[in-house]
Each structure stands twice: as C-alpha cells, then as structure tokens.
C-alpha cells in the first residue's frame, strides 16, 4: 500500500486520513488546542450546502472549518 500527503480539502466525504502537519501558525495553534494533532485520524463528513465550510470528524468529535483553513492541514492518505 502506498501513501501520499495531500491537503485535507482533497479528501472526499467519507474518506479518512492521518493529520501530518498544519501549515499556518495561527490555525495550527487553534487546531492543536482542540486536539487536532499530527497522527490523529481525520474523516471528512459533510460539506455545507454551498461547499464550504466542511465538517470533519477528529478526536471523537465533529469540527467545522472553512476550506481555506482546511487547506492548511496536510494529511497522510493511503491509496
């Protein structure tokens, strides 16, 4: 099995990845505090009706964030 590092926004609803890194410093700090840490599995659940924001399942709860924010989250996905 191969794995690739992609943006969280490239995951389709239902797909799961592992958080690899968070790029933007502010967003990183916020997400870290909320338990979105490197190594945590993350699943894309649903997009808001207009495509943004997106709801993800992480650390056993549902988090909503905008696509522009999710773009900063790199995930490891097995292909």
């Amino acid at each position: 099995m191969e794995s690739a590092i992609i943006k969280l926004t490239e995951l389709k609803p239902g797909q799961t990845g592992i958080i690899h890194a968070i790029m933007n410093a502010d967003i990183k700090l916020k997400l870290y505090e909320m338990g979105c840490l490197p190594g945590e599995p993350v699943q894309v659940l649903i997009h808001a009706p207009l495509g943004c924001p997106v709801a993800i399942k992480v650390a056993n709860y549902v988090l909503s964030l905008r696509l522009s924010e999710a773009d900063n989250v790199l995930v490891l996905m097995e292909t």
Partner: protein
Amino acid sequence: MSNKTLKVALIGNPNSGKSTIFNLLTGLHQKVANFPGVTVEKKTGTFSLKNTEGAVLQIALTDLPGTYSLYPKALDERVTFQVLCDKMHSNYPDVAVVVADGTNLKRALFLCSQVVDLSIPVLLVINMIDLVNAAQTTIDTKAISDVFGIDVICMDARNNDGIPALKKALANYPTKAGKTIFNQQLFMPELNEALAKRYQLSSDYASFLIANNYKYISVFKEENEAGFMKDLLLQYNFEQSLQGNETLERYKFISSYMPSFVHNQALENKKSYSYKIDKILTHKIGGYAIFLFVLFILFQTIFTLAQYPMDFFDNWFSAFSIWVADNLPAGLLNNLLVDGVLAGLGGILIFIPQIALLFAFIALLEDSGYMARVSFIMDKLMRGIGLNGRSVIPLIGGVACAVPAIMGTRTIQNWRERMVTIFVLPLISCSARLPVYALLIALVIPPVKWFGFFNLQGLVLLVMYLIGFAAVVISALVIKLFIKDKQPSYFIMELPVYRVPQWSNVLYMVWDKVKVFVFDAGKIIIAISIILWVLSSFGPSLKMENIDKQFALQLAQPQADTAAVTNTMHAHKLEHSYAGIMGKKLEPLIAPLGFDWKIGIALITSFAAREVFVGTMSTIYSVGTDNMLSVKAKMQAEKNRHTQQPFYNMAVGVSLMLFYVFAMQCMSTLAIVKRETGSWLLPVLQFVYMGLLAYGSSFIAYQWLS
C-alpha cells in the same frame, strides 16, 4: 470556621455542560453581569453547603466562558486567563471545578492540565457520563486522580445525576494543588525568580503564561510595571513562541496515559445519529428550507400563542386600573398613579409573554445543537456580505434584544467582521419593536385567516422582520465595498452532538431575560412614563389657567353636557401641555411621514427604549379621557383633524412601522456599542445612518400609500 466563603470557578470546553451544572448548583440565586473592563458575560451565584462536621460553607461560584485553552487569543479566553493567572483578580478562585465532556476526555484533560499547573486546587467533573456508558466505555477516575493529583467525580448533569456527589466533593473541597504536569524547562529560572520577587505568582506555569501575555494583567497597565516586565524579558532574551510546543507536550503526556484512563478505547460511540440528522439539517435545499420554516414557526408562535396571555394581562390590568382610580381618593396623586405609574407598568407587563416565548425558542435552538448548524450552513452566505457564520447567532439574538446580541459578537474573532456585525445588528427587529408592531398591526391590518391557519397579521409581522434582515444584508454589502479586510477570519468551531434540549436551561434563560426586561428596561419605562405624565398634565401656567377658566364657565351653564365638555377640556389641556408643545414643534418635520404631534411625543420618548411608544400612547390617550379603554381602542377612535376619517389608516400605520424598523431609538444599544468598540464613532454613525433610513423609507411609504 463556621461561615467561610469559598470562591469557586467553573471552567471547561464549550458544550461541556458547564452552564447546566451552574444552573443546577445555583438555581435562581444567580446574577449576570460583566467582567470588569470587558463585556464578557459573567455569571455568578451563591449557595451554601454543610460539610461532614456540619459546618456551613458559603460558595461563591463564577462561571467562566467556555474555552479550549488558557492562552488568551480571543476575548473570552482572555477573561479566563485573567481570573486564573492573576492572584490579585477579585474572582481568583480557591478551587477550580473543571468540567469535562466525558466523550472528549483528552481535549478536556488538556485544559485541565493547564489549570492544574497553575497550582489552583482542582476538582475534575467528568460530565455526560451517560453517553460514555452508552458507548460501553468506562473511565477510570482513580487513574486520572492519581496521575493529576486531583479529585475526580463523574456526573450526568442533563439528567440531574451526580449533583449530590458534586456538592459533597465541594463541601470537602481540595486544598492542595495537583501534580505539576508540564515542567516548563524552556522557561528560565532566573527570569522566574526575578518575577516571583516582585509579584505574587501561584506557580512557574502562571509566571510563564504571564510573561507571555502580561499586557492583559491589570498590574501591567501601569507604565512602571510594564516597563519592568519589558526590561526583564529583554534581559533574559525571552522568546514568545513556545505555545505550540507546550500544547504538543501536554497532549503527548495525556495520550500516554489515555489507555489507563479509558477502557474500550474504541470510543466509536453512538454519535452517528448526529451525523444522520446533519445530513438532513445541512442538506443543500432541505437545510435552508428547514431553517426558514423554523423562523416561520417562531414568528407565528410569538404572534398567535402569545395572544392569549396578553389579552388576559390586558383585561386584568385595565380592570385593576379602574379599581385603583375609583377606590383611591381622586386628585393629583390618583392621576399620577393611574395615568403615570400604572399606565407604564401595564405597557411592560403585557409584553412578557412574547419575550418569554421568544427566548424560550432561542434557548431551545441553542441547547439542542441546531444553532451551530445554522452558523454552518450560513457561513458562506454571511461571508459573501462580509460577515461570518458566527454572526448569525448574534443576528438572530438581535431579534430578542440588540444589547446582549452585541455583547455576543465577541465570539467573532476577526475585528472587522465583528465591527460590521455590530453596526448592522440594530437593524434587526428586536423584541422592543414587537410591541410597537403588534399594536400597529392590530390597528391597521385586518385579522384575516388564509387556509384556516395563515394569519395575515402574523404574515405582516414576518414581513417587518424580513425588511430588517434585508436592511442588514444591504448595509453589510455596502460596507464591504468601502472597508477592506486586513485580518484573517476563522471559522473553526465544534459542531456539538444533538441533544434533547433541557427544559431547566431553557427556563433559566427565559427567567434571566424576562428579569432583565422587567427590571432594567422597566425602570426606564416607568420613569419615562412618569415624566411623560408630568409633561402632558402640566403646561405654561397662564395658558392652562385660561383653559380652566374658559371651561369652568361652560360647565357652569345649567344645560352643559358635563362629560363632553370635560373631554374637550382635557384634549385642550393636552394640546397646550409641555408635551403637546414639544410634539407640535416636531410636527412640521414629521408631517411628511404622516405623523401628528402625538406621535411626535412618542418618537421623543421612544429614544429611551422603543417599547415606550406603547406606554406613551397609553399615557397620552388616557390623559383627557375618563374611561379605561385599551390603548388600541383609543387609537382606533382617533380621527384625522381634517378628514374626520380614522387617523390610523394603512398609510400612517405602515409609515410608522417602517420608521420603527429602521430608526436607532435605543440609548442602551448606543451605550453598549460605545463600550464594545471603545469609541463614539460607531454609535454616532449608526444613529445618523439608521435615522436617515427611517425618515427616507417612511416618507416614501406614506407618500405612496396615502
């Protein structure tokens, strides 16, 4: 030690059930105020406990805003930081009760570990234990207690399960600090020592947090102290960017213990029902349709359901006023009481049902978790007009009252989005306008029913609200064209699990808001009502004497119709009273809108609070008549001076309603905006902008309709 007061702070993540626990502990003994200097809501309450030796312990409980961390990034977090890190703060607690959502234990333990490191004795409450159990998971409280060195209890606050245990734990409250979790090795001991020499610091971690964020601690507002701190930080080459590291370290520590804290790690619990509901409530079309339907139900409820208790109040109060008028000795005092105080009081009481229903609705939406979904589906739309998904809740809150709603905008972290939200928010029709709409709609819109249940009056009410919303959208768009964004805006927010709303939470919210309305707004309303009675009962003495003389002559004639003459006399007196003079001065300005001097008086007094309109009308129309008809009937009977047609026709009614939709007639809102933004610029702009909108739209409506 028989009567000691113990200061306890409640702290926890958002959606951890903190407010439910607060309500359960304090009951109705709670007060809502602000933290000093900022408009972050501070809820405090007191209660007493008996410990095992039978000694009485007074507890002063402070509910801190929900937060994920102690780092003061947003205003809410700043308050939590100030209370817990500054030993000189008036709310600095003897004990911190950390409330954890049992299904999000790791995240809660992260915050808990920070509080523990401040060396404040901690009592950890693991809430929502029902959900944990439902997922066939067990939490080893003993293990957590051992690792952190703190007391741990479990509870299910929603089902009122575990309160005795919590009270018992508080009665035997912890006095020792827990174990230090995160040893701030990167923090220089020399710097720490230098700080500890000058300031009272509870722990190394507290000094670390303060060194990072000293500008939020009150003592550093003094130039000397700030200078001292700056020099010290410079001297020791203190670098500020260790927060990410610390967060990772703390989580690493907690994660290493998670297998011993939680058994059956597969916390794949039954949250999937939430996901199924989300699929419907955030559906492309269905999501918005449901949201609109919810709003529709909301307005229909307010208008139709509230009608019964309102009619009851109205009848009861009229009867009471007649009784007072007839049974107390006639004279000036009787008039003051009946036409001044009671008229104003009636104007307040009658709207309690509507306000209570409205807040019950909002509380239901919030408590069930639906409000967060509303933000979720509205974010992109709101961003389109330069706002934020988080603006939706304050804007909907604005339907109740702009004052708390503007205070609620602090959850919007982006400064520009927050300012724009505050600016446009008073355009939303608040509950103070509701009495005005209700009265005017009842006056000029026929009570027709369509298809058996569509109430035309309810529909017009909905339209009034929609006009307000439209004004918000258009105004925000215009502002977006002129003010550009500098700061990044965020929408990182938890979507809480759907829960059946808790009735006690709803009731406490309704109780709080009704109390604020009756006592805070009520005070102003009664005061204005009395001032108005004085203004409308007295006038320049020469003129008044002349009227008295003139009518005394008429009354002296044997064939005089006493009642008719008295009425005309009162009408004359009102017209020449101080209020009448003021209203008349205003009349040329407002005549193009279809308003007469009586409405002019109401516009002046409405500046205190919009609902005073109704009280003013009651007072104006009760002065000069000797029966106790409701204000609606009196206004209905009012004739146009020139045409002898009913004065309150469609054109005047609509024009007046539009005026109230737009005009900034609320000194409390202006005051709160000044406080939230720190300058008079925004309130002055709002006043002018909304005033122009009101005048313009009323002018167009009246000229077009009449």
